[in-house]
């Protein structure tokens, strides 16, 4: 009997060419990262159970899930609004552990849908990130309109994307994108294209520290 191994593959394994691309040679205007090894679960309150779901979430994560387009960062996960009475729980991948913990927490009060492989996570940052994003994202990302913690569900190149803003260690804006896995190769090319004139630093990071 042959040995069976189960390596994972990134949907960007061809599209993502690590390194400095585009104009200039100095610091890139745009930094684009694929975030690998993610866990993502859609949590949808059962009918009439929105309050109970929020309460259970608070107990598990230490924060209330957002009830408007926002992203709330907790110690073990980020909770991103994804519609009425539902949110996405985003965390480092941990085998089945994260989903199992949620299934336990929300048993009977919320339905779960595992999207860990259904979405591809990206980080866009750098001094020209917003200029590049203006080419494919209709959202107003101005500091006063889309501050840290703001989130939106929007259309990017005819497909749905979740966008939220966080900050890096230096406090600079990081735009987080969740896009459908099957679209990610196409979207990566488009985002990279949008960034080339500002200089692009492409790479990947792991959500697991």
């Amino acid at each position, binding site marked *: 009997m042959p040995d*069976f191994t*189960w390596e994972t593959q990134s949907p960007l394994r061809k599209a993502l060419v690590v390194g400095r691309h585009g104009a200039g040679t100095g610091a890139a205007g745009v930094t684009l990262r694929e975030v690998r090894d993610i866990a993502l679960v859609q949590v949808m309150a059962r009918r009439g159970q929105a309050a109970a779901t929020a309460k259970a979430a608070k107990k598990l994560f230490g924060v209330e899930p957002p009830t408007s387009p926002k992203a709330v960062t907790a110690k073990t996960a980020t909770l991103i609004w994804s519609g009425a009475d539902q949110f996405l729980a985003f965390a480092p991948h941990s085998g089945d552990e994260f989903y199992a913990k949620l299934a336990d927490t929300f048993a009977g009060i919320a339905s779960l849908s595992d999207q860990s*492989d259904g979405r591809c996570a990206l980080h866009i940052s750098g001094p020209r990130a917003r200029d590049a994003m203006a080419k494919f994202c209709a959202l107003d990302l101005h500091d006063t309109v889309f501050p840290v913690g703001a989130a939106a569900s929007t259309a990017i190149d005819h497909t749905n994307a979740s966008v939220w803003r966080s900050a890096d260690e230096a406090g600079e804006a990081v735009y987080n994108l969740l896009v*459908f*896995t099957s*679209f990610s190769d196409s979207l990566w090319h488009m985002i990279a294209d949008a960034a080339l004139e500002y200089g692009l630093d492409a790479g990947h990071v792991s959500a697991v520290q």
Partner: protein
Amino acid sequence: MSGYTETQPLGRTATADGRASPDRSSAANQSHRLANGGLIDRQAPLQFSFDGKSMSGFAGDTLASALVANGVKLVARSFKYHRPRGIMTAGSEEPSALVEMRTGARKEANTRATTQELYDGLVASSQNRWPSLRRDFMAVNSLLSPIFVAGFYYKTFMWPAKFWEKLYEPAIRRAAGLGETAHLPDPDHYDKAWAHCDVLVVGSGATGLSAALAAGRAGARVILCEEDSHIGGRLLSDGGEIDGMPALDWLRRVTDELASLPNVRIMARTAVFGVYDGGDFGALERVNDHVPQPAEHQVRQRLWRIATRRSVVGAGAIERPIVFPGNDRPGVMMAAAVRTYINRFAAMPGKRIAVFTNNDDGWRTVEAVVRAGGEIAAVIDPRGKVPAAYRALADRSGLRVLPGQVVDVKGGVDGVRSITVATGSSTQNIDTDCLAASGGWNPNVALSSFHRGRPTWREDIAAFVPGVSPPGMIMAGAANGDLSLDACLRTGHAAGAMAAAETGAKGKSGNAAKAADEAFAIQPLWQVKAKGKAFVDFQHDVTASDVTLAQREGFESVEHLKRYTTLGMATDQGKNSNVTGLAIMADARGRSIAETGTTIYRPPYAPVAIGALAGHHRDQNFHAWRLTPSHHWAAERGAVFVDTGLWKRAQWFPLAGETDWLQSVKREVLAVRNGVGFCDVSTLGKVDVRGADAGTFLDRVYINGFSKLAVGKARYGLMLREDGIVMDDGTTSRLAEDHYLTTTTTAKAGPVTQHLEFCRQVLWPELDVQLSSATDQWAQFSIAGPRTRDLLINLVDPSEDVSNEGFPFMGVREVMLRGGMKARLFRISFSGEMAFEIAVPARYGEAMARNIMKAGEPFGVVPYGTEALGVMRIEKGHVAGPELNGMTTASDLGLGGMASKKKDFIGRIMAGREALMAPDRQVVVGIKPVDKARRLRSGAHVVPKGAIPGPETDQGYLTSVCFSPVLDHWIALALVERGRERIGEIVRICDPLRNEDYEAEICSPVFYDPEGGRQRA
């Protein structure tokens, strides 16, 4: 009264910064360049060529100003009559000076020389002439002009109709027209971008700057768009004094202050071309039109979609010509344009300039010429009464002032040589090489009318002013009919302050700047009635007599006038011709202009290249694509891909030595039928349906029942649209008491998901149901063929039972695979063979493909593509997209028996309509050719044997065809009238498109294993 100031302009001059004297050699070649002044950089000489002739200009020039500086008068031939034309204006309204820019793949026709910035090495050529601009054979059209009148094409080429396409149109297109396109792919990149603000200010003249400053100081987010390369609008050409300082100093201070405000963004070279619903504006930024070619990674142009809450339009006014014989000769220019060339570009358009004006503003050109040391041949002012200040200027400078009209212009291809002026009953000839004419100013109302706001007539300025503007738009300054500098500053400031306040800005806007309030007096003169061709629309060669002819022939409404004569329908959209044309029409009808009315404008205000509208989306990026989890694995095996919606799916996997797709597909089918194969089916839509009422929800959505489906089982389902027509099909599995997984066809995944969400949120909000798309979460493969179980035994953990008893047909459960991977296993079959679908999280898609290959190696497993998948489903008689065509009912598909009678479901009532139940409907059957060597093609029609093919005898058509490797001949599924009653009948198959006509037999659609034993084995 104002004039150009004596202060230092913004551009550098030879002496301004104390540097070495200018490049005398290049300046010396420029016969019409003034020694001083202008916003040009004399330290930066630029070489360029026009029609192969080398010339020089300076940074800051436009192509037009450089041509003026070099004394070039003739730059184009007109559209219809091939008349020699020159440069008429100095802005984007230019109708005549259209040139071909650049060469090779970057060649671009119909570029306005007045908006093209000069760069070193610029190559431009004239267009619409042969063999040369000076000797143009098609100028013979001008001699034939009596027949090229309004409505000429309608009148002449109406009959016979068939001659139009083949003879008339090509001949006319060769003779008429303007430049030629490159016929090569555009090598440049374009993109599109969004911008957001509270207040969008259009135009950066006195009005726009005042508005931007007022709004910006108040704290609003402001975007200021200017189509020119320089901020300043008419201030760059007219100078004047603002707040006690020279206008250009004021301009510098304001631009410095705006630049210091972080909430203000200035976008030069950006033309706002349209306003759309919801406060979105379209704008085109000419990012790199001013350089030979964009730097690497840079775009040529960028299309902006600007979302704003308020807008202030300070788009200024456009000077209008007077219609008189010969008014199109090279050297006849708009008076304000002459002023622009002198003041902004230090280029004198003539050695001896005559000015013909019916309003005060024309006198400012007289003043500019005198100030620059030019010679005034005469000033013709039909009003007779000249304002005192200008009378003094005339006296001081000894100018000849004639209270008359220009009745003729004489000259050749090199332009004006003399004009004839009628004063009372006497006429006189005056030698001149440049006639500056002004018929008054038309407020630039275009943006205000884009939502159908009709401009209204204002008698005092003899012009149309904005009517009802789109929501949130404030028209200000000259664009609103306030023609004086002071009024522009005042209304611009007020508009900016108001717009900012309406968006919630709380800061102080400060005070409006002030200027002396100039008078603007005008006595309308639209047309000089004298013999000779007098042009109204210069780009489309529409003359005054065309307008009056239209009136005589009954095309009196402004809309008819426009279409009958093509007035205002050229790329300049009649910016300087529309109002004049309808004034002449009003006169011909004996009505007032207000009664006659005006046409309105449509976007785009300025031409927008298709490339800019496409942006990133061209060539391989024409649309987004979706890749399956095993895509790169399949690509590495040499798979041929096909676009299925946005998906790229493996169509077949050719092996070395296979030269024909059919060869590969036959091999793949036989490998499955005789052994085992697998195919990536991840593209099928997958929707997680959860909640206590999930079963009830599915009962209402599908025609068959799901609430009683056992956990661990799958069932085929069919859903209807509200109108009773089949919407989609697929299997649904019950994974847990409150968890179903529904699959859709690849094509309908999106619409079905939307439909389900609609049902959940709108139709039955009382149900406890949660939906989530899981399509991209799973890598799913169909493994099919008699050796499937053998393969699975190698793949699954030894503890798993995949025997027929342990895992029966339509069973579903989670299994453990060797190597410690959990997977979902579904025993469903599309091919008619024993088959399973196996699903793992998408990140393991390639590993899954490799491991299936490994597990199936002893049994000769092959990957197969969508073609083999299609062949096997046709052999098995399964319906798919060609049969689920949006016109068929469940019964048409032979699936009517699935409909539950015990419950209600979407489409039930409507499916019972008489026509949908009619016995003579076309239903799905199989078709096999009588001559087994015959190839079938989909789309061929079915008619009864012996009938003459035609609409009356047509009984259906072949929907899906394939070559069946197991039967060794072509087969088809077809929709045939009363088909099920006609099994065994020989019919005639007609394909008039491919000229085929043969006989075939109607048969059962199930060609393969009709008992279904193989899939249950």
